[in-house]
Every structure is written in structure tokens, then in C-alpha cells.
């Protein structure tokens, strides 16, 4: 029990240190939820040209997201010539691999992709605390027990940062946004050499 309390205290201190380190001004908790509207329209097919740099390899493909229902998305990556590289279904708490090529069928890789994709398509997250910095409003949320900060500028989500131990682990950067369609998405990992660049087509 004592160790649990120490761990929890350490966790809270670690998470709390990120806003302080970055000179965030506390705003309080003025909203219940923070929204990510970018993959929320069931009528739309979200199609992106993907460029992926993973470790010492770089490859491309077509990245496809479709919302099928509340909290329910299908996410597929194909090669430019149409062969499926992976095919996942995310449904609230469940994650199913429908298809993945043998070269990518590694538990650790699927775990990383699962975490990234969950963040990417999650529409609504509970806001625990609000901050401001310059023109940004920043909301602290948790997803699978991990802390994420949602950066909004002019009431538009432009960045999500996953933080662990007070350090930035993964950045999701949204730019060229028009009518809730993101023209450019970058997913940058700071701890491992993995970069995903998505351009709407």
C-alpha cells in the first residue's frame, strides 16, 4: 500500500511537472470534455498519403480511416498498389487486427500503432485541467492511464502531446485544417525512431 501511494505521488508529481516546466498558466477546469473532430464524420472517407520512417526503413502507402459508429473506426494502410499492410478495427475499448502483413506482425509494433491510432481517432476526452500559453489553450486528458495535452489555437485543435515522466513522448501535429478536414498530420515519436506523415488526398 505504501509503495502504491509513493508510486501514485511520484506519478502525479511527474505529470504535474510538464505544465510547470513549460510555463503553462493554470486556467482551471472550465470544460467537461475536449473534442477531436477530425475523424468524426460517418459520411466521410478519410484518405491520406502516408510516409513512414520507422527505424532505418522508410516506406509509403495509403492510410484510410472510416468512422462506422460511436467510438467505432476502421483503419487500414495499403501500399500504393493496393495491397493491405494492416487493417484494424477500433471499437470503444476493443482493438482488433483484421489483417497485418507478416513483416509487421510484431506485438510491440502493434501495441505502438494501437496507442497512436486510438489517440488519433478518439473524439471526446474528459478534461482534467486547463492551461494557457500565449495563444494556446491546453487541456490535460488521460487515455489508457496516460496523460495527453490537447493544444487548441483559435478554438481549433492543432496538437496533442503524450507526456510521460514530465517528458514529451509522442506529438500529433494537425495543420492545413479546413472544415474539420486535416490536410497534414504528423505523428512524431521522441523515444523511438518513428515518424508518420499523412497528407490528405
Amino acid at each position, binding site marked *: 500500500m505504501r509503495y502504491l501511494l509513493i508510486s501514485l505521488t511520484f506519478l502525479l508529481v511527474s505529470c504535474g511537472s510538464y505544465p510547470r516546466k513549460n510555463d503553462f498558466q493554470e486556467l482551471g477546469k472550465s470544460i467537461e470534455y475536449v473534442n477531436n473532430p477530425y475523424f468524426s464524420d460517418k459520411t466521410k472517407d478519410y484518405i491520406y498519403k502516408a510516409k513512414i520512417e520507422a527505424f532505418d526503413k*522508410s516506406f509509403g502507402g495509403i492510410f*484510410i480511416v*472510416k468512422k462506422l459508429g460511436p467510438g467505432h473506426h476502421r483503419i487500414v494502410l495499403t501500399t500504393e498498389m*493496393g495491397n*493491405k499492410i494492416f487493417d484494424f478495427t477500433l471499437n470503444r475499448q476493443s482493438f482488433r487486427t483484421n489483417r497485418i502483413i507478416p513483416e509487421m506482425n510484431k506485438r510491440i509494433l502493434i501495441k505502438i500503432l494501437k496507442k497512436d491510432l486510438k489517440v488519433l481517432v478518439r473524439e471526446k476526452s474528459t478534461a482534467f485541467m486547463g492551461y494557457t500559453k500565449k495563444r494556446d489553450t491546453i487541456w490535460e486528458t488521460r487515455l489508457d492511464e496516460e496523460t495527453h495535452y490537447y493544444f487548441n489555437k483559435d478554438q481549433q485543435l492543432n496538437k496533442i502531446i503524450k507526456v510521460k515522466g514530465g517528458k514529451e513522448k509522442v506529438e500529433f501535429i494537425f495543420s492545413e485544417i479546413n472544415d474539420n478536414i486535416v490536410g497534414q498530420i504528423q505523428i512524431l515519436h521522441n523515444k523511438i525512431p518513428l515518424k508518420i506523415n499523412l497528407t490528405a488526398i
Partner: protein
Amino acid sequence: MRNLFVIVSVFVFFALHGQEKAMTTSEITAFKNKVSATSLSTKTIQSDFTQYKYLDFLSNLIETSGNMAFKAPDMVKWHYTKPYNYSVVFNKDKLYINDDGSKSNVDLGNSKLFKKLNELIIASVKGDMFNDVDFVTTYLKTESLNKVVFVPKDQKIADYIASFELFFDRSKASVQEVKIIEPTGDYTQIIFRNRTLNQPLSDAVFAH
């Protein structure tokens, strides 16, 4: 009402499938000979193409297009120009990618499965793939087209590809369309147009 629907459905099924008939043995022999002759005399092919990707959960097909160049015996370049600039060159045993200026020769297409698929695509461009022992082959005909369906024997390939269909122009014995059907029913369809044969084509086109 329901009975009427069943009757109409059965009628439509037979009407549609009635258009496609199995070739006779002599028709198959004649057709294979014609395709082989065309293939042997083909030194280069240049063609535009449109590719459609069908995924059952999407509202629309994903359409991409570009041009293809083939030079005998084994160089092929697929150059996608819309909606992005991307080319993949199969030059002998090597594969080269140019993704909007980023060049590499490392690609997931290097996997054994994709290599086999790429071989099939190259063979299909030439139209000469009837001797591939890895497939069960069925020959069909319609009014204007010949259709050849290839079903993989290898379970590892069958897990990804249910069948591979080639549609041939009857008079020219050249491939007009390629369709790769996955076990789920999702498919990739490539339709060729503006095809020119045996025009001079520099090796530089296939350089990395």
C-alpha cells in the same frame, strides 16, 4: 412481395452470369496461342492506367491514376501522377521507389507475398502467365472480352488473394483490365487505356 423479390433476384443472377461462359478446350488453346504470339512480339508497352481500390466499408472507391511502361524482358515502371507523384520500378530482380522525390529501394513490397504479386502484375501486363503452376486457371468469355481467373494454390498467398482476374480484348489479345480480389471481397482494379506497343523506350526510364 418477398417472393417477387426472390424471383427477380434469381432472374437477375442468371441474366448477369449467363453473359459469361466457359471457353471450350479448342477456344482456350486458340486464345493462349494468340496471347503468346502477342506477348512474344511485344518489346515495349506504354499505357495510361486508372486504379480503383474497393474497400467494403468505404462510401467511395479510392481512385489513383498514372502511366505504365514495360520493356522486355523484365523492366516495368508504374508512375502514379494523381493524386500524388509516386513511382515504383521493377528492374530485373530489383525494386526502386520514388515517393515524390524521396528515393528508396526498401519497401514493404519486398516481402515474398508482394514480390509474387508484382511478378503476377508484370506477367499480366504482358498477358503471358498461363504457365504459372502456382494457380488454378479458369477461362471464360463474354461477347467482347476473354476473362481468365487465377486462384492461388499456395495457402499463404490464398490468405491474401482469393483470385486474380485478367480481362483481355478479344481482337488484340492484350490485357485491358486487372482485378485482384481479396478473400474479404475487397479488390484492386487496374484499367489500361491509350496503350501503345513497340515504340522506342529508353532504359533511362527505368533508372533509379
